């Protein structure tokens, strides 16, 4: 099967690249082995939260210019412009966000930390400046027996910042039903029950009974898998200011992003190879001619250009064995830091882990290499790129989207 461009990997970076190329009129295929880490995403997108000294970043654009030379952002021609394009890509997919690249705001993490971020989905709990909390009295309102919303951590995190917090909970007969299978009382199933049974008005009543006297109600993000419509309705029906905090995985705002981005890609005519895995590349000299997948035996997927966006270790975009780290789909070169295995990780999990900086080698145009030779038509994007520690820098969504858009620009040039 022949396409203009083939994207390998269907996470945030693969979908961003696929959509941008399809918007530019290209015939694009996307192959993805299973669902992506967007399912753990918290409803905010980070550009750069902490600089290399570990200080909170207020203006990501300024701080990005001071990053070290290996950081993937160094391969982006115009960070400010592409950040604007990224926001528009999301918007056209039906994902409205607030935030600017030159000005971080703070999101509330599922375990109560306040973290600097770039874009937040509408309705998510955010503050302009974590130094001056705008809330005096917060009600944390959970669904009875929902375990993926760790209210104790959340309350402790907010109290540490001088906010008075009360933990409350409500339930409805329809939600009680879910308790019959405790393992399935998860955010996405709660969302499905609320939406199929039209429970918004009832929930609003329950919350309004609790909300008197608080200047902010924080709810678990358990609404709106397919669109933000229901989650918006609920916030409107609550009498005091109310927002959502993402839950532990699976995260409804993350699943919503995945769903809407994928929908946008197919609506633009993109072809999605769902649940299939690229297992081999067919290279001729310095070009990639086609890829083979696990399920399309007998068919090679061919294209003029390719984007490798298979993610990091968690998505098996990178694999570690006892001796080395490798890229399993196409066998492109990996920057494994030349380290002995014993030094890949540090015993204290909170320390900066060296393996986090490993990733595929690319030239200044984000093109991959094989046995030291640059492949002219194979680009890498997203968390498969090394050179930074996304947990310490809080920069993963920015790296995903901006490297994807830069790879697209390089392809379209």
């Amino acid at each position: 099967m022949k396409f203009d461009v083939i994207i390998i990997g269907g996470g945030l970076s693969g979908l961003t690249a696929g959509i941008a190329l399809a918007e530019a009129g290209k015939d694009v295929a996307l192959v993805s082995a299973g669902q992506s880490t967007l399912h753990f995403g918290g409803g905010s997108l980070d550009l750069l939260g902490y600089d290399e000294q570990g200080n909170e970043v207020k203006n990501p654009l300024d701080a990005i210019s001071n990053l070290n030379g290996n950081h993937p952002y160094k391969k982006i021609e115009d960070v400010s412009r592409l950040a604007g394009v990224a926001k528009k890509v999301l918007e056209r997919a039906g994902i409205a966000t607030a935030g600017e690249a030159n000005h971080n705001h703070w999101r509330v993490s599922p375990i109560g930390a306040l973290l600097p971020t770039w874009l937040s989905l509408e309705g998510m709990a955010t503050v302009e400046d974590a130094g001056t909390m705008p809330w005096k009295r917060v009600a944390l309102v959970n669904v009875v027996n929902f375990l993926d919303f760790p209210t104790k951590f959340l309350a402790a995190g907010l109290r540490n910042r001088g906010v008075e917090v009360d933990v409350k909970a409500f339930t409805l007969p329809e939600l009680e039903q879910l308790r019959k299978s405790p393992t399935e009382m998860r955010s996405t199933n709660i969302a499905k029950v609320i939406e199929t049974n039209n429970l918004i008005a009832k929930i609003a009543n329950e919350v309004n009974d609790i909300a008197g006297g608080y200047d902010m109600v924080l709810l678990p993000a358990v609404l709106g898998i397919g669109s933000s419509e229901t989650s918006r309705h609920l916030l409107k029906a609550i009498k005091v200011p109310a927002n959502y905090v993402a839950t532990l995985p699976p995260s409804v705002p993350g699943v919503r992003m995945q769903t809407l981005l994928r929908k946008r890609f197919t609506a633009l005519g993109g072809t999605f190879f769902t649940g299939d895995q690229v297992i081999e590349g067919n290279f001729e000299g310095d070009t990639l001619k086609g890829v083979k997948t696990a399920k399309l035996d007998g068919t090679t997927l061919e294209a003029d250009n390719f984007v490798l966006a298979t993610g990091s270790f968690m998505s098996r975009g990178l694999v570690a064995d006892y001796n080395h780290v490798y890229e399993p789909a196409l066998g492109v070169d990996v920057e494994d830091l030349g380290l002995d295995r014993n030094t890949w990780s540090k015993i204290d999990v909170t320390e900066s882990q060296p393996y986090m900086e490993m990733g595929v080698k690319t030239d200044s145009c984000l093109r991959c290499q094989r046995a030291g030779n640059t492949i002219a038509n194979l680009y890498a994007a997203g968390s498969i790129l090394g050179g930074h520690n996304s947990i310490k820098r809080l920069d993963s969504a920015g790296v995903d989207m901006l490297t994807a858009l830069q790879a697209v620009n390089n392809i379209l040039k």
Partner: protein
Amino acid sequence: MATETQTQNVSVNNFEQCLKCSICTVYCPVSAVTPLYPGPKQAGPDGERYRLKDKVFFDESLKMCLNCKRCEVACPNDVHIGDIIQAARIKYSTHKPSLRDMMLANTDLVGTMASPFAPIANPVLKLKPMKAVLHSVMGIDKHRTFPDYSNRKFESWFKKEAAPNQDQYSKHVSYFHGCYVNYNYPQLGKDMVKVMNAVGYGVHLLEKEKCCGVALIANGMSKQAKRQGEVNMSSMRKAIVEGHVVLTSSSTCTFTMRDEYDHLLGIDNHDVRDSISLATRFLFQLIEKGEIKLEFRKDFHKRVAYHSACHMERMGWVPYSTRLLRMIPGLEFVMLESQCCGISGTYGFKKENYERSQAIGKGLFDQINDVAPDCVATDCETCKWQIEMSTGVPVMNPISIIAEALDVEATIISNKK
């Protein structure tokens, strides 16, 4: 040594690869509508750990699993969740299939009995009193109408009308038509012959064809499924020796014979598997290689919404059908968001499952009503019953759409060159 240990540490159905990420639970159509089902993660890899220790941990609620494999498609770690669940049912379930289950599962036996009486059986099966009896005595839901039985089986039509002309072609394929084409909808089989003949291929039936057995597996009759599977494999071996590819027009039969025979029933199909293909895939591949060409009528216009049947998605073959359909100039193509229709073969026919089945499909029906296409295209026959019953929109197999859009004369000429 360490490397060896690591690479050999692969368990049955990849169950040890489970990272507990919970992504599969987002996509299970059953746990989305009922809390009584433990969900793919718990029913699959989590529960398996316990069952391996003691079979008392087996839970009959696993029979609620549709075997749709949507969890497997979603799993980023290639855990064969659906296989784990079905294998556990085969291994541990003590539930005996009822008469109703046997009747629903034996699609070819019931078809053989009903076909000669089709003019009687069809209206009778639609009568209210009959439906009431089926509902209360048999447990077949009263809302369901059995798909019509055709009074002339596809095989009879084929032998009389088509078989004599097939040897004139220089290239040949075998056709596994399946129960549905044989008893309920011979038109699809006729369309298949029309398209294949137009591109220069003679069509042949297998020496012996049995139901692929998907309904038997679902209803706990895996021994019978295995016997039937062995018959199919041995017929197919003979066809393959003659150089034929074995084509099907049903995604579920294809998936069952290629993957479930080996994974669930322990049938050795390794020498046959690669020669079983779906007709849309076969055509697409030949067109791409430049070996055949399809010419379409200038006056064909249709707005078609494609529904990805669960097993089609699991095989990863959806793009073969959609890219083939998109070659038709007069076809306006809309891709539906992939969702289960809820019927899952015989599952939705059972009265205990009816409501759940309709609740599962609701999202898909709403989408179809919004798109309002001239027809829905899908590669699975049971999706056709479900979608037609629930939306009133006609459903066609891509092969039938091709047959309708095809300029037969022009195609024959193009392929003679």
